Every structure is written in structure tokens, then in C-alpha cells.
């Protein structure tokens, strides 16, 4: 097992990793920007090294500084968290070249899944259903029209290098296609410096359902059930739950088995998430995330597995030690992502935390690096806390979530807690009757796609 792990991240996920390491008896090294000198993960880590100024490109994305920090502090391994360098294949290669272990999948698998067109082909080859679409990149309006006619409207035009909803446009009929195509290409160029786009069937009211996969270096792969992440705003997840209100045990086992088998076939290791769109009983692959997800705690709640611990264990070469039949799925868990933002306008609200009082009691977990007096920097993501609630069933979970949200005090800035309180009380959400467009309608926003 590792002696010392460098945590190449910040905020709640750096704290999450720090906790897992300490619970495994592993020393931690926090690397941080000047803006995060007072951050909680820095205070709680065994060692800390400042790697650069506030801007992420000069610190959390500064590969050389992170590798230098690992070198001078004799770390064994690097955990990237999510975001930043977590899905950067070049970084993974450098980490390994310098003799450190990257706690995550191989550079090769990250590269494969980072290329949306190649990823789709690869998973299709190993048995995962995909959305009907273009065979590859679509170059030119003529080809776009032909492909659209073949796969059927509505169609979606997406940037090959895309993500986060940028460079993604829908066309409901042939009349809308030309404009949508041209906008998508322009946005792709502007956002990614690469105008390549591909096309696929646009699903009208799909849910976003993703399967958590865990694989070791010895060919053992399990799935840990699904998460329903349909509640999204501008392609950012807001609430996640497991199990999905739309799935039964048979469906879960069927798709979970397909996903795990596919991951085994491609030789993947570490945690990974296979994301699907689900509509009318059909699953279609979206993409595979080759990292720990923000929403991993809902899976931890219903399976009682510590995913970060498992990630570290398999990175050290340890075998899983259990098989699919040993994975229980008990209870119901929901996560609310709490952002420092106005709950109506969604404008970011950085500032200094006044009173801070997280909820407690049975079935309540808070993952947050906040503390009273902490100054939330304006340089980074606005997510400041995750509230994860477990109940023996969905209704109990919802009631517990309601009371926990009511207890949560974060003074000094605006947060999305009031939005979550509205969502938890919304009849559609209570009934589990929602799709990926529901939240934007609920908050009165038009989809930009």
C-alpha cells in the first residue's frame, strides 16, 4: 500500500480523498494555490505545498508544479479527484514516467473515452447500445442532411471534442437543421479550437442514468448500480439519486451486467461511470467518465462501499476481493449539490462564510470544505457542499432530505439551498416523474439546445 498520496485537487473532493487516506493510514500531501492556503483540506493534510497562484492554469492545472511537489515530498501516488487533471491522458503518462502511481485508469483508456466518436465505436463493439447516429464526424451540410434523414428527427449535433453542453445543438426538423449545424460548428471552433461535429437521434424526454463501475488490475469488474442524474441545469447536475425511480431490479441487473462486461472487455481499471440516456425502456450510451464522480456518495450510501478507498486499493494492485453477487443495494440515497449562487438567478455568490452549521443525525452525510470564517474564492467552481441523505425507501429519504435542508445554515453568501427546498417539495420530483429537461422548465429556463 502507498505511504503518501498527493491530492491534486481542492475543495470538498480534496477533503474527501484526505479522509479516505487517513482512514487507510496513508499520509497526505495537499498541493494548493495561493488562494487556498487556508482551505480545509490543506489544514487537515499531513503536509502541504503551495504550487502556484490562484488561477487554476498556474496551479491545479500546472502539471510540472504538481510533479515537482510529488518529487520533493516523496509521494508514491497521485489522486486527481474530478475536474482539473483527472481526465488528462498526457498528465497520466507524465505521472507514470516519473515513477508515481496515478490513482485512476490508464492514459490509454482516458484518451479513448475522451474522444467521443472513438468512445462510442469502442463501447458499441463490446455490446453497449448507442443512440442511432452518424458513423463518425459529419463534414458539411450535405452530409448532415443525409445523416439526419437516415437516423430520423429530432437530431442533435455535437462537438467531437465537446462537453458541458458547449457545441451542442438540436434540430427538430429539416427546416432547423442548417442553422443548428452551423451554430454547432461555430461553437465547437470557439470552445475547443476544433470544429468537428457528429450527429445522433435527439431523445425527447430521456432520463440521464449512469452506472458506476469498479474494476481492478486482475480483470475483476463489478457494477455498483445506477444513479439518476436527470435533474440538470445547463448540463450541470443538480440532484442525483440512487436507485433511479424509473428502474426496477431486473433492468438494473441487465444494464449493469452489460456495462460491467463491456468495461471488462476493454481492459479498463479503477472507477468509471457509463452514462446513458434512458427513454421508453431503452438505454443509449452517452459517454464514459474515467474518474471519480461528484455524485459518488449516493452509490456509497446504498452499497456501503467506500469508493475512494476502493480506488486507492485497486491502484495499489489489490484485487477487489468480492464479486457482483456480494454487492448489496439497500435503501435510497439522494445528493443535493449546494452552490454558492443566487437560487433564482444562479449568479455566483462568492464571499466569506458567516455562521456555518451542517445538518446531522441519522442518515445524513455532508461533504463540504466550508467552515465559519472561510472565504470562498471566486476563482473556482461554485459548488461548496454536497448533502447526501439515505433512507430505507425513497419517501423516507425525501422526508429526511427536507428536514436536513431545513437545518443547514450557510450564512454570508447566497446558496442554492432554497432551490433544493423547492425541488424536494415539487410534486413531479416527489413522484419521480422527471427527465433531463424537467429542471430547466421548473426554473423557467429555455433549453439552449
Amino acid at each position, binding site marked *: 500500500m502507498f505511504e503518501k498520496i498527493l491530492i491534486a485537487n481542492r475543495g470538498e473532493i480534496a477533503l474527501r480523498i484526505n479522509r479516505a487516506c487517513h482512514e487507510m493510514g496513508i499520509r497526505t*500531501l*495537499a498541493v494548493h494555490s*495561493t488562494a487556498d492556503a*487556508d482551505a*480545509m483540506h*490543506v*489544514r*487537515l*493534510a*499531513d*503536509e*502541504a*505545498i*503551495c*504550487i*502556484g*497562484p490562484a488561477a487554476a492554469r498556474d*496551479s491545479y492545472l500546472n502539471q*510540472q*508544479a504538481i*510533479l*515537482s*511537489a510529488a*518529487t*520533493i*515530498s516523496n509521494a508514491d501516488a497521485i489522486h486527481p479527484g474530478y475536474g482539473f487533471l483527472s481526465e488528462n491522458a498526457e498528465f497520466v503518462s507524465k505521472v507514470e514516467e*516519473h515513477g508515481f502511481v496515478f490513482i485512476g485508469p490508464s492514459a490509454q483508456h482516458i484518451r479513448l473515452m475522451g474522444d467521443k466518436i472513438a468512445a462510442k465505436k469502442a463501447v458499441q463493439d463490446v455490446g453497449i447500445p448507442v443512440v442511432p447516429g452518424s458513423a463518425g464526424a459529419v463534414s458539411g451540410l450535405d452530409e448532415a442532411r443525409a445523416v439526419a434523414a437516415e437516423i430520423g428527427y429530432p437530431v442533435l449535433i455535437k462537438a467531437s471534442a465537446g462537453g458541458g453542453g458547449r457545441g451542442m445543438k438540436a434540430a427538430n426538423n429539416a427546416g432547423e437543421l442548417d442553422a443548428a449545424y452551423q451554430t454547432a460548428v461555430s461553437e465547437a471552433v470557439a470552445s475547443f479550437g476544433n470544429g468537428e461535429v457528429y450527429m445522433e437521434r435527439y431523445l425527447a424526454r430521456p432520463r440521464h442514468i449512469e452506472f458506476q463501475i469498479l474494476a481492478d488490475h486482475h480483470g475483476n469488474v463489478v457494477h455498483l448500480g445506477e444513479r439518476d442524474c436527470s435533474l440538470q441545469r445547463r448540463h450541470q447536475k443538480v440532484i442525483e439519486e440512487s436507485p433511479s425511480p424509473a428502474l426496477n431490479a431486473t433492468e438494473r441487473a441487465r444494464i449493469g451486467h452489460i456495462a460491467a462486461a463491456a468495461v471488462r472487455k476493454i481492459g479498463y481499471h479503477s472507477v468509471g461511470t457509463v452514462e446513458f440516456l434512458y427513454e421508453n425502456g431503452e438505454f443509449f450510451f452517452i459517454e464514459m467518465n474515467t474518474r471519480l464522480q461528484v455524485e459518488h456518495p449516493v452509490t456509497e450510501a446504498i452499497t456501503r462501499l467506500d469508493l475512494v478507498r476502493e480506488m486507492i486499493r485497486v491502484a495499489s494492485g489489490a484485487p477487489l476481493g468480492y464479486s457482483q453477487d456480494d454487492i448489496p443495494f439497500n435503501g435510497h440515497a439522494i445528493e443535493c449539490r449546494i452552490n454558492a449562487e443566487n437560487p433564482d438567478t444562479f449568479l455566483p455568490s462568492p464571499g*466569506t462564510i*458567516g455562521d456555518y452549521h451542517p445538518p446531522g443525525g441519522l442518515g445524513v452525510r455532508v461533504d463540504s470544505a466550508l*467552515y*465559519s*470564517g*472561510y*472565504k470562498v474564492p471566486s476563482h473556482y467552481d461554485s459548488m461548496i457542499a454536497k448533502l447526501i441523505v439515505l433512507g430505507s425507501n425513497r419517501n423516507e429519504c425525501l422526508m429526511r432530505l427536507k428536514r436536513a435542508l431545513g437545518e443547514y445554515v450557510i450564512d454570508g453568501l447566497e446558496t442554492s439551498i432554497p432551490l433544493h427546498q423547492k425541488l424536494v417539495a415539487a410534486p413531479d420530483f416527489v413522484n419521480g416523474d422527471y427527465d433531463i429537461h424537467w429542471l430547466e422548465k421548473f426554473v423557467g429556463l429555455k433549453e439552449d439546445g
Partner: protein
Amino acid sequence: MPKQPKSAVDADLIRTLADLLDETGLKEIEYGSGDWNVRVVRESAGTVVAASTPLASTAQPAIGAATEAETFADHPGLVASPMVGVVYTSPEPGQPSFVKVGDQVTEGDSILLIEAMKVFNPIKAPCSGRVARIFIGTEDPVEYGEPLMIIE
């Protein structure tokens, strides 16, 4: 400036002084001329203290940020490390140091090397002056922003 009490005080003056308190970090300003005076006081920010104590333990820097050096953090002649790496005080092992305390240096002179990922980066004097303090020794690891030396 009003010599006689007025119901319209010089509000702009007080706003200016309040801004000056903010700018300078002072707690109190008294200001007067002849028989006229004004005094403004800002409540000291208790929360700053609170902010520094809510966690039971504080991480130790992995590398030797000397307490002594911290007191020079705001010194105008401070040379801080621009990167994470390992310091070398001389161009080659066994050779004399680039500089020692008391030396005069000219802006642009090499004063140290910092090795990061097998690349030796020369650190140059940001200004001309006398080397007043050196906080690090050869082969010391340093973090970003760590005080290296003072040139006065």
C-alpha cells in the same frame, strides 16, 4: 472645512477617512486643524481571528518555510520562489555560491538555481542591491511563493 458647527457635516470628508481606514487597515483616524477635528474608528474584524482557528490541526508545510522567513513576507526586497522545486545555491556542486550575505548584486544577476522536473531554472535578481538575508540552503525543497532571499 467648517469652523462652525453645522447640521450639514462634511460627509465627504468622513467617507474619505472611512475609505482610508479600509485602504490602510487602520482602526482609528483623528484629523484636525486648529480648533477643528474629526475622529473615525473602525471596529476590528473579529472574524479574521475566528477564521484562523476553526480546525483542530493545521498541515505542516512539507518543506522548510522557516518561521523567520515568514516575518519578511511583506518585505519589498523579498525574492520569492516562482515555482516548486529544489534550490541550488551554486552553479555546479563544489563551486562557490552565486551570492552570499553582504554581496552586492545587479538586477538580472543569477542568484540561485531551482530544479523542477530535471530542468535547472536560473533565478535572477529582480533589483540591484545588497544581499541582506538568505533563507534557504542548497538542495532545500521550496514551494511556490516561498521566501528565498532579501536584496536591499
